[in-house]
């Protein structure tokens, strides 16, 4: 499977995500933000980081970059697109995913391990997880507080477009285990066609038992399925 990782000057999870993909034998290409042509890809990943410094609004400038215009085109044609952390923020800024990521409810950067529950495994990104499985991921963001209008929120729930929700160790979903204030404990969402996933937690940080755990491996393995 051919993957492309988009590299903005302020990306800082690009190397991590490339490592995760290469571990699973993806043929991966790093694509510099000034490029105007995308290599032929089955999967495009927009990694975490601070794209262009994010001094304006996270992802706002990146969404207007040359390469993102190309990403939007192929995404609309059905190419798989995964946005993690800053990548999720960028995807909402382009409109590929609806809603917005506001400042965390405690107004501080949050870097910690959290639990998410796999809510929908019937999609290209999550098919290796068991429905209801509790996963330990890591978050590291200032703006991860997912917000959208009530109609869209209802649509997300009704159409089962929320693959991950924040929960506790046992899988209970409640406000106490909502680290950043996201509506309905949303940790990630899919678009209608389910070819685009945006998520705040970092699965690429959970691929090695010595460092953390292996809970992220199946996300990448699912894509190969």
């Amino acid at each position, binding site marked *: 499977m051919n993957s492309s990782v988009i590299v903005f*000057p302020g990306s*800082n999870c690009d190397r991590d995500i490339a490592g995760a993909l290469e571990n699973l034998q993806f043929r991966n290409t790093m694509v510099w933000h000034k490029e105007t042509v995308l290599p032929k890809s089955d999967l495009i990943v927009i990694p975490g980081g601070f794209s262009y410094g994010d001094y304006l609004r996270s992802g706002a400038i990146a969404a207007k970059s040359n390469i993102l215009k190309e990403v939007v085109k192929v995404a609309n044609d059905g190419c798989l697109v995964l946005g993690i952390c800053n990548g999720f923020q960028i995807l909402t800024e382009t409109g590929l995913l609806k809603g917005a990521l506001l400042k965390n409810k405690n107004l*501080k*950067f949050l*870097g*910690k391990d959290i639990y998410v529950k796999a809510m929908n495994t019937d999609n290209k990104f999550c098919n290796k997880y068991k429905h209801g499985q509790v996963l330990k991921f*890591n978050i*590291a963001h200032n703006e991860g507080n997912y917000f959208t209008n009530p109609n869209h929120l209802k649509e997300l729930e009704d159409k089962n477009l929320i693959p991950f929700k924040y929960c506790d160790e046992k899988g209970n979903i409640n406000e106490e285990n909502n680290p950043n204030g996201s509506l309905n404990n949303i940790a990630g969402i899919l678009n209608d066609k389910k070819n685009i996933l945006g998520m705040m937690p970092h699965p690429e*940080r959970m691929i090695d038992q010595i460092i953390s755990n292996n809970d992220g491996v199946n996300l990448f393995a699912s894509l190969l399925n």
Partner: protein
Amino acid sequence: MKITNTIVEKHGLKPEEYSKIKELLKREPNFLELGIFSAMWNEHCSYKSSRIHLKNLPTKGKQVIQGPGENAGVIDIGDDDAIVFKIESHNHPSYIEPYQGAATGVGGILRDVFTMGARPIALLNSIHFGSPGHPKTKTLLNGVVSGISGYGNCIGIPTVAGETKFDSTYNENILVNAMAVGCADKNKIFYSKAKGTNKSVVYVGSKTGRDGIHGASMASAEFDENSEDKKPTVQVGDPFTEKLLMEACLELMKDNSIISIQDMGAAGLTSSSVEMASKGDLGIELQLDKVPCREEGMTPYEMMLSESQERMLIVLEDKKEKDAKKIFEKWDLDFAIIGKTTNTNNLTLKFENETVGEIPIDALASKAPLYDRKWTKTKLPEKKINIKDLKKIKLEDALLKILYSPNQSNKSWVTEQFDQMVMTDTAQRSGADAAIIRIHKKEKAIAVTVDSSANYCKAHPLTGGKQIVCESWRNLIAVGAKPIAITNCLNFGNPENPKVMGQFAECLIGLKEACEFLDFPVVSGNVSFYNGTNKKNIDPTPVVGGVGLIQNTKNKINHLLKKEGNIILQIGKTFGHLYQSVFFKEIYSITEGPPPDVNLPNEKNNGMSVLKLISDKMIASAHDISAGGLILALAEMSMSSEYGLKIEKPQKLSNIMEFYFGEDQGRYLVEIEPKNLQNVIKILNKNNIFSESIAVVQKDYFEVLDEFKINTKDLYKTNNKWYNNY
């Protein structure tokens, strides 16, 4: 402009220093030259009060590639890998403007590391604030922590360890020390020494603005009631640009274009150009019209003294300018050839076709003032307290009070603001004795820690100096790492005060003795004097950053309890030293008396034996016993694990408080499976090491027999409560 006495004084120069300038130049300096002398001769850049003491520190060792004197220290960790690291203070700016002060502190130390060709792999910090009740503390705390987090998170280097402490001595002068650690190919280390004449001197990075002018001079004076006015001397950080600069420099370093490279830190363009020329025994000529400026109409004086961040100076090999320029353009950074190396041994400054300044390099560097300041010894304080005379307190109450106290409370509210996992090699995050960073794509890892014990150093600087080195050593051992070398950040008051100078001199003697004995050399460091306000000096606060090596990351170990039924063995002897302890301070507000004695042979013997037991896989978990004593160390082993402990009461010591809260040095706690116990004790006996088994791992409860029994979850809650109530 005529140089008057007032102008000289405003530049922080003493009358006799000004006379020396005239003598060296054989004329009066002009205003620009005076500014340059002031930037180079201040305490922060010249180390004029500390140099004669620093030179006694052991700086060599089998694994040392580069000791102090460069941008950072370099050690060899085998397989052509080198670790580059340094700690630096940003105290004064952080007090005036906490967010930017702390952020640029991180930025500055990162540049020191990647300037040498290393990719930074970890950040650490040691931050000291005034009393929590002081009106400024909360704002300073929040500002500093978010400044560190804002910079480190954005650039994408994990912040993995640190310490956050409170004491009224820092009410008017907080400490913000940042440490950076990088990894490089040992055959591709870059230095600041220029070589060859007529080579291009290149400016890269951000444009020069009017920020931070005279920052280093500000950091070389005490604060007074007008300190707020110094805000314009604080620089403003831009982590995004630093990221670009880092990537561009590392990209340029892949080929052989660079002769010499130096970041523009304190005293900006002045100190970087002088440093390069001085080390290379050359002259340097700068065409100041070519300096990329952020603002219009900037004068040579402003350009030379600006401390705008995220800038580098590079001396390039011939004909490499075009390729180098391409790299910096790719990263959207300024690139300007602003001068050349010369054989004049002068710093020559040209502006609008005129020579506006010309100073012999040695007058700025090797001939800078050097002081052997007066210093007085600190006597070992007497032991005057009889614990039997103190009001009785229950063991449980004392423990809970200490767990709730600001200094001993859990600091996850700080560390959760840091990205600890980016780069995906953090094998042990903060909260342990030391953090562990795997070397990318390799089996081995390094362990890193920062430590300080200001109250020990105040009570007896000589012992305190030894103790912090030992503390660092123990913290590395306790995670299974072999200690290699340290960096130090020496935060002291006014060196013109003989008592302060004595604290400095004696702490350094202590550091030296311990480093020598433990074969734990100093490879880099920084001195920060004039920490104080209105003649009130801070307590002496040397901070030590230690680095150790773990051959295989799989062999890492931490302090969390692993299995029910395992035995906890205390290694090293408890004498019950309560003076300068957390117990005396938090429970009785007693701050007098001597610090615990440091026995270097025991320290070494105990440490090496523990390390051997860890590598032989005889130990399930390990923890250093430090501030708070045995009981706090035991509580720490339980609180974040799934288990509690059943603790026996001591047979011998007459007072259990001495046993549980004494801060005797050289002690560890290790968790051992019952089947290994006899064997471990045999090995320890053979090495003449005192050990005693003191507890058994059990489910759920932390219990001292005949004293108290408490659920470990409640201990954890108490330990986490303070900040939420702050």
